[in-house]
């Protein structure tokens, strides 16, 4: 059995761990509220843009459509844009994102396609490199970004579009977590390049006037649409990270509490046993006289 001193030290160390997890939990709860509000605030823009895109894309088709909509005509080289968090302490979130990304990669490879990775966030690097060391194309660092920033999304989108235009890949998929609640974040995969044709087309009977023409507007709008999607992914990531972190830290705090209780009981028992032994020794010594 551990000595009293050892037990005492153990209790002290668990207590300080509990303090850390509790603090992290409260910080995450506060940040989650902010992240959710930010995600909410971004929705009108994304909705409007998607609506305009839908009505325009249905009018412009065939060879006159911009490259970003039409695609390169090939379906061989795939790029997986995986959005992970930069910090840990958020339970299984990053593991789940990586799992989803690897699943997509396996499926694509099974179909005979080539796959490369564009990693956003630090936490996806190590696990993906382990399996696909030579296919990691770019690692984008977002660790100095405190809140999801549109400028950051812009930079990523510009880089992706430039690569696409150079023909480095034919299709890009975005893998990111969708925030459902603090308890569940679903990693999902959506195609971002070429921009998939919108399904819902609301036809209005009014004749809309365009300035400049439809193609020029679409040309201008498509990169913006991709930026908005990446920005949305960053916002979802932020909310997911804080949600997952809150849940994980809540569990950790509770576990630490249980451990402290158990150790305290053990400590008190050992102390009692030591006192009893001492007493017996004294009494036995007195009787012997």
């Amino acid at each position, binding site marked *: 059995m551990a000595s009293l001193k050892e037990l005492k030290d153990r209790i002290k160390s668990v207590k300080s761990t509990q303090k850390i997890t509790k603090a992290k939990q409260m910080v995450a709860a506060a940040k989650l509220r902010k992240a959710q509000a*930010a995600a909410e*605030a*971004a929705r*009108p*823009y*994304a909705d*409007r*843009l998607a609506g*305009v895109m839908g009505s*325009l894309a249905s009018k412009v088709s065939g060879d006159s459509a911009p490259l970003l909509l039409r695609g390169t005509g090939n379906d061989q080289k795939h790029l997986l844009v995986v959005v992970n968090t930069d910090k840990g302490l958020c339970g299984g979130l990053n593991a789940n994102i990586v799992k989803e990304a690897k699943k997509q990669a396996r499926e694509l490879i099974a179909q005979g396609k080539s796959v490369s990775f564009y990693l956003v966030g630090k936490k996806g690097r190590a696990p993906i490199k382990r399996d696909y060391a030579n296919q990691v194309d770019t690692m984008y660092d977002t660790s100095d970004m405190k809140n999801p920033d*549109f400028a950051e*999304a*812009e930079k990523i989108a510009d880089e992706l579009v430039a690569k696409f235009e150079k023909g480095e890949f034919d299709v890009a998929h975005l893998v990111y977590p969708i925030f459902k609640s603090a308890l569940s974040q679903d990693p999902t995969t959506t195609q971002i390049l070429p921009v998939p044709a919108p399904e819902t087309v609301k036809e*209005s009977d*009014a*004749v*809309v*006037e*365009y*300035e*400049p023409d439809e193609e*020029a*507007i679409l040309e*201008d*709008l498509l990169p*913006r649409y991709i*930026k*908005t999607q990446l*920005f949305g992914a960053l916002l979802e990531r932020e909310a997911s990270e804080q949600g997952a972190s809150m849940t994980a830290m809540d569990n950790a705090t509770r576990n630490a509490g249980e451990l402290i209780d158990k150790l305290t009981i053990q400590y008190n028992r050992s102390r009692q046993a030591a006192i009893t032994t001492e007493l017996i020794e004294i009494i036995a010594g007195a009787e012997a006289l």
Partner: protein
Amino acid sequence: MALHFELVTPSKLVRSEDVHMVVVPGAEGEFGVLEGHAPFMSTIRDGAVQVYKTEGGAPENIEVRGGFAEVGDNGLTVLAEHVED
């Protein structure tokens, strides 16, 4: 007699109000939008969107960058990537 005007950026809904007229710096020239304007879509160049709350009143200028304007049945919507407050 009021035009519903919305100004939206990726991070938030900046404005949503009823105004008299808005002058938008379109890519091919400025255009003013009053109530009942025909459906219209245009990219806009970087510049100031002038919002006239009342007829004849002084305009309020809002600087926008990277934008797009749409006039529909429900008024004017300006989508901008950046808005300078």
